[in-house]
């Protein structure tokens, strides 16, 4: 019962947050002198007539609150507006560009969780071994790399030489899973690695630190003394305790994920949400930008709610608060 209340409260908070973001975004873009807005929308080389027609078309002359209500009204009907350049509905654009981003995110998250947590667990259980030292160095390097540097270097060191020598499995650009798993992986492998390297480093260090501390606790010694197999001790007890900070971190990272995704899409030429957003920015295509911001915010809110749910399952104390 308290779980349900918890969920309801979180969803309500999420809706409020989304409303705040939508309002903030709207006012950020449109609450400027009409001429500035119109000029920006019409393009750098627009003549005054063009600017005037843009103003009329979009109703920029109307009081700001009228514009705001219309904006909200459209939003609540699920309409995110139309791109200035392609005249496409933003909804359509987003639906189109979702698959690459989704592939990237899902594959990347799975990869970094497995790699990061796996290396972290092994490092902790074999502390100070060669593996551990090597992984510590790798972690530090991984943490230091900007994502686009990893992507660029991977392209340089893997994609180019392989293709030059005729191994064309690894490709840039996007191909969906519908074109065959092999093809899909070939295209997505380098992007996944780029995303995962930096993130895995964070999780390795987190898991290793937590696990080391937990394994030093007395109740672990008790478990061992009871005769539990080492594997059970590590996983049932040690890892379980170390999971909560990992989930916490995941919550934060999911929110920030959009940043890394954008960059990777640009580097590897995946026409995903991120790349489309960047294009829209360079073209001053406001409706697309706004649509992207809102979708991103919605994504963060939903992801945070999910993470909170998982957290509440792991740690019942949270539900009462």
């Amino acid at each position: 019962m308290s779980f349900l209340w918890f969920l309801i409260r979180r969803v309500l908070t999420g809706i409020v947050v989304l409303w705040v973001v939508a309002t903030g975004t709207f006012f950020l873009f449109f609450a400027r002198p009409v001429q500035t807005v119109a000029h920006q929308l019409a393009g750098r080389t627009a003549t005054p007539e063009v600017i005037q027609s843009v103003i009329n078309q979009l109703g920029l002359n109307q009081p700001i609150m009228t514009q705001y209500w219309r904006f909200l009204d459209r939003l609540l009907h699920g309409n995110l507006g139309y791109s200035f350049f392609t005249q496409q509905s933003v909804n359509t654009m987003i639906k189109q560009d979702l698959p690459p981003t989704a592939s990237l995110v899902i594959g990347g998250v799975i990869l970094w969780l497995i790699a990061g947590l796996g290396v972290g667990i092994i490092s902790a259980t074999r502390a100070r071994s060669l593996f551990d030292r090597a992984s510590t160095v790798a972690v530090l390097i991984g943490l230091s790399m900007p994502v686009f540097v990893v992507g660029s270097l991977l392209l340089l060191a893997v994609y180019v030489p392989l293709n030059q020598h005729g191994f064309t499995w690894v490709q840039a650009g996007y191909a969906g899973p519908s074109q065959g798993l092999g093809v899909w992986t070939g295209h997505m492998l380098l992007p996944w690695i780029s995303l995962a390297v930096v993130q895995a480093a964070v999780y390795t260090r987190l898991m290793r630190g937590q696990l080391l501390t937990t394994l030093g606790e007395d109740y672990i010694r008790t478990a061992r003394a009871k005769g539990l197999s080492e594997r059970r001790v590590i996983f049932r007890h040690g890892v379980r305790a170390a999971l909560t900070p990992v989930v916490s971190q995941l919550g934060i990272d999911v929110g920030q994920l959009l940043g890394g995704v954008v960059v990777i899409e640009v580097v590897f030429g995946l026409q995903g949400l991120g790349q489309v957003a960047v294009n829209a920015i360079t073209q001053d295509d406001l409706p697309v930008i706004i649509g992207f911001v809102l979708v991103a915010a919605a994504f963060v809110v939903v992801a945070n709610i999910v993470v909170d749910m998982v957290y509440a399952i792991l740690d019942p104390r949270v539900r009462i608060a």
Partner: protein
Amino acid sequence: MSITELNWQAQTVEDLAGRTIEGRSQWQLTWRRLRRDKVSMASLAVIIAMILLAIFAPAFASLVHHPANTAYPIAGESAAGQPVAPGTNGFWLGTDDTGRDLMVRVFYGARISLFVGIVTTAIATVAGVAIGLIAGYFGGIVDTILARFTDAVLAFPYVVLALALAVVFGPSLTIIIAVISFFSWAGIARIVRGQTLSLKEKEYIEAARSIGAGPFRIMFVDILPNLLAPVLVLATLYIPSAVVFESTLSFLGLGIQPPTASWGNMLAAAQNFYQTAWWFVLFPALALLITTLAFNLLGDGIRDAMDPTTERLLAARRKARRGGAQ
């Protein structure tokens, strides 16, 4: 002389009142431990070298007679208009897409990156410490407001907002510094707030209040010195994130605009040259990598030097376990 005085290699300071004996401060001890850590010392050397390169970039440019923003269509480009490889025609690291000296531009890029990194971290640290201190010390409604605000900033996907701001105001150095600082202070504030909350309960703070010290005096004279250690580590680790943030923004076209050299926008321009000019991709990437790695290693090293107990504790535990599990 008592035994305690004999053990301390005291530095005596002459003074009007006679001899006084200096105690070893935490900073001196930390520095001594840090000095012994070779990795940290190497990182520090790299950072200093990078700073020097950045400062003397113009000098280097005149040395090779290649100003940073000057293109050399003849000497700097091949017949097909491609960049030339390192070592040709006096270009030590080759040229970029418009025939400019790559090495010079990498050094100029260092100026941008280090400047942005250090300035934004300085701003973020001052703001973060101030807000964290105030929120933690005063508690109550002040803390609630500040803490929630901090959490909101922390959770916000900064790239999205950075993009939006770049659209609205146009990309510029000031915007970048403002944006990066705005998103960096929150992490520092949260940690400072946590530390302040626990330090506030210590008896010496109560003692300070009983003397009659006001809240601001207590915050800055009593609490702050106890915070400097973790704040220093944090700041050292925030510099590389600021550098990464700036280069990411520049890479996306939202940061430093060409022709000004930034490692980020150089890498963006290099996107088309993977197969034809590997040096154009490699050297800015390496520069970024080395800089961030050095700061991260140094930050880690400082953290370890400040708290040597964790390692010793772990080692003792392991020894005990190994010895007992025989």
